[in-house]
């Protein structure tokens, strides 16, 4: 569990650090020292890119552009204004982060292959600018005579000093990465990578979080750039070409995304070994290609075997435990009062000619507790849920929720932040994460994220972690899934996955819950348990619940009020008994035989 993990491998890292400190004492070749210094810079770059590619799951190709921003920032300000190194590094990081945000804002509209293309273009534009904006960048010739870094009057002129300077910078970067990997940042980014929609349903403003990943990743490149400029004492566009970007990306991909130790190994394989093979001259590139292929294939089959062997720490019995008469945990009660009613006025929604909702007008009396929403397949029930939850914006009409305002004007993560929790018809969990982490995402919704503490090495996030843990464990315990807390959700049966999703919405301390077919895939005994839990949530927890469900027995025993949709219109509404007796409902939905 990353989020609360305590360092077990501290000593291993100290050993590595000690090993590196000894290198200049043992090795007298300035060339070798220089190569290792450059290796450190690549590790920094790869760590930064791993935030964007590994955590946030964004494929970015033109990453060397951020490297260039940092390098030129230092080179220009150093040659013209004599800016000292320690300030320049910070400035370069900030500058690159700023460029990252400016670039990210328009480009984050696209994902996947398209994002890769857009960032590729950005990298190319950057090289063009460097080549042609002669007055600042010196054009293809670059900027010579950059002074070597001086940190608090300590002049890093020789290869040994530069080695230590790079080692110090990389160590700092490593500490920041470690802090980030244990912070809520990591959990939130991974949730976006796994399922963006579900993350938004937990109140995560995905655009802002991805921008943050961009900015932080770019900041690493900026700092690395300044260090590079200081060590080379010269910058030119040649150092920031596409092949540079590809090399960094290859290191991250070979490292499998996030682990810093693997990044160091991959950096060694892809940078140091080819460097050591300079004597092969014309065969060097060929050798590099072969190394890349062999290592990638080996590593791929290796990690596949490892993930199969790892399994999950689950007990043999995969059933959630259940005790009747469970109390609703008080810490899950909504901070603000529950939603008392939702007024739908003339809500319509079409999908390219298909009229899913056609002017639906009715009031959902949430103050009654649990209310049902039923109707034939394709009646528009899920569409209506999506409109309430802000995932879809209706073509016309308003949805007024008491105390929350007009929900049609809000996006999904805003609605979630207001306290509307929802589940999805086909459960949408973060598949690569554990049950606990999934539920944490819900708990984050109501907590102040410790932004600064997440990036400052050694800063304590204990208060935040305890708060979230209490809420998440209360939710898991209430649903009887705490035994699975460390299991990966993808390995769990559907019934348990549904409970994880419910726990995630409960951890949001919701003011309204929208449950889309939560009972499907459960057997009779499990449905009884779930019904008990829902009753407790509604009566003791005071959370109003809207149920979309096909199991008529399940809905009617729970609901105080049922609305029936058919063909995108309201067919009937009333108490369960009225609905069961309604001729039109029987004809269009229930059929003659009750299931």
């Amino acid at each position, binding site marked *: 569990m990353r989020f609360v993990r305590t360092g077990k491998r501290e000593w291993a890292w100290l050993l590595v650090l000690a090993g590196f400190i000894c290198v200049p004492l043992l090795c007298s070749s300035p060339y070798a020292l220089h190569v290792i210094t450059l290796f450190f810079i690549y590790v920094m770059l790869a760590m930064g890119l791993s935030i964007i590619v590994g955590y946030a799951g964004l494929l970015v190709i033109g990453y060397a552009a951020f490297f260039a921003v940092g390098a030129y920032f230092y080179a220009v300000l150093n040659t013209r204004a004599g800016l000292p190194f320690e300030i320049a590094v910070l400035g370069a990081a900030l500058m690159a982060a700023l460029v990252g945000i400016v670039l990210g804002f328009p480009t984050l509209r696209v994902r996947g292959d398209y994002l890769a293309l857009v960032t590729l273009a950005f990298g190319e534009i950057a090289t063009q600018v460097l080549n042609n904006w002669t007055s600042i960048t010196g054009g293809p010739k670059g900027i010579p005579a950059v002074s070597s870094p001086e940190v608090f009057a300590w002049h890093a002129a020789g290869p040994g000093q530069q080695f230590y300077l790079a080692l110090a910078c990389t160590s700092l970067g490593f500490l920041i990465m470690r802090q980030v990997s244990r912070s809520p940042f990591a959990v939130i980014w991974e949730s976006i990578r796994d399922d963006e929609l579900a993350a938004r349903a937990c109140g995560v403003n995905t655009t802002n979080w991805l921008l943050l990943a961009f900015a932080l990743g770019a900041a690493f490149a900026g700092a690395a750039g300044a260090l590079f400029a200081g060590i080379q004492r010269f910058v030119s566009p040649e150092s920031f070409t596409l092949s540079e970007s590809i090399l960094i990306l290859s290191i991250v991909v070979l490292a499998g995304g996030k682990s810093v130790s693997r990044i160091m190994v991959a950096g060694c394989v892809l940078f140091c070994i080819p460097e050591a093979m300079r004597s092969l001259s014309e065969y060097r590139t060929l050798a590099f290609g072969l190394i890349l292929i062999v290592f990638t294939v080996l590593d791929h089959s290796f990690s596949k075997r490892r993930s199969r062997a790892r399994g999950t720490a689950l007990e043999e019995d995969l059933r959630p435990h259940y005790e009747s008469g469970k109390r609703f945990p008080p810490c899950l009660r909504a901070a603000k009062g529950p939603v008392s009613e939702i007024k739908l006025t003339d809500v319509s929604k079409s999908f390219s000619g298909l009229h899913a909702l056609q002017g639906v007008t009715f009031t959902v009396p949430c103050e009654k507790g649990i209310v049902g929403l039923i109707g034939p397949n394709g009646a528009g029930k899920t569409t209506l849920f999506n409109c309430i939850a802000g995932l879809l914006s209706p073509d016309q009409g308003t949805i007024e929720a008491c105390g929350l305002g007009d929900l049609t004007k809000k996006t999904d993560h805003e609605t979630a932040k207001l306290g509307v929790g929802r589940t999805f018809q086909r459960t949408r969990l973060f598949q690569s994460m554990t049950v606990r982490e999934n539920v944490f995402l819900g708990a984050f919704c109501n907590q102040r994220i410790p932004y600064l503490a997440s990036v400052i090495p050694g800063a304590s996030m204990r208060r935040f972690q305890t708060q979230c843990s209490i809420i998440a464990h209360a939710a898991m315990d209430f649903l009887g899934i705490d035994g699975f807390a460390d299991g990966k959700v993808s*390995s769990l049966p559907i019934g348990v996955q549904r409970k994880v999703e419910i726990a995630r919405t409960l951890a949001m301390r919701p003011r309204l819950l929208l449950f889309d077919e939560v009972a499907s*895939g459960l057997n*009779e005994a499990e449905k009884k*348990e779930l019904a008990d839990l829902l009753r407790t949530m509604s009566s003791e927890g005071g959370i109003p619940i809207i149920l979309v469900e*096909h199991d008529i027995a399940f809905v009617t025993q729970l609901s105080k009020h049922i609305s029936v949709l058919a063909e995108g219109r309201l067919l009937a509404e009333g108490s369960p008994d009225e609905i069961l007796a309604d001729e039109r409902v029987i004809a269009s939905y229930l059929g003659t035989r009750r299931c």
Partner: protein
Amino acid sequence: MLSVNDLSVYYGGVRALDNVSIEIRSGEIVAIIGSNGAGKSTFLNALMGLIHKSGGTVTFHGEMISDLRTEEIVARRISLVPETRELFPRMTCKDNLRMGVFLCHDKRLFEERLESVYGLFPRLKERHRQLAGTLSGGEQQMLAIGRAIMQDPRLLLLDEPSLGLSPNITSELFQRITEIRDTGRAVLLVEQKAHIALEVADRGYLLTVGRVTRSGTSVALRDDELVRKVYFGE
């Protein structure tokens, strides 16, 4: 027609299926019931060769199929409707159905079977040009079943077919399942709605934490104490 002997599956170190043996004869509906996590879906996936079997044999019409790849098993006309549906979301409804007859290139046959699927689920005919990913949940379930039936399977494996279907369509679906049986085919049914499942099935097995703990005719199972306890919560 299908006999499974001592099938075992491990996930990591956890035994998901422990020496499960099951027999299905032609013209029979066999139900597998059990609570969530009992290993029912694992069993179906292992039959189809979708997950690695650690031990046991599967014979279909006298032929060993335990070591065949999934596509070879499908070619022997065994179809699975997975619990997760696994549609092709960016293909139209009709193209999804076309994928069901991927192994057969007879156009007339395609049209014929298409009509029979449309007969079962008229809603699919209305939506035939719509992308599968944009169908409502219940419609997607219909499409998944329709795609499996398109192949005209000799053995149909259904994993929670009623998931997300409205009551009237559910009862119609089970009616069709008995019709499929009556044409001499076999159906292996995994279903949470135990009372309906045992109503249409001829025989059944109760799976508890990866082991077969009860088997017998549906009537016997329905009255079984253990089944009533696990399943109906009585």
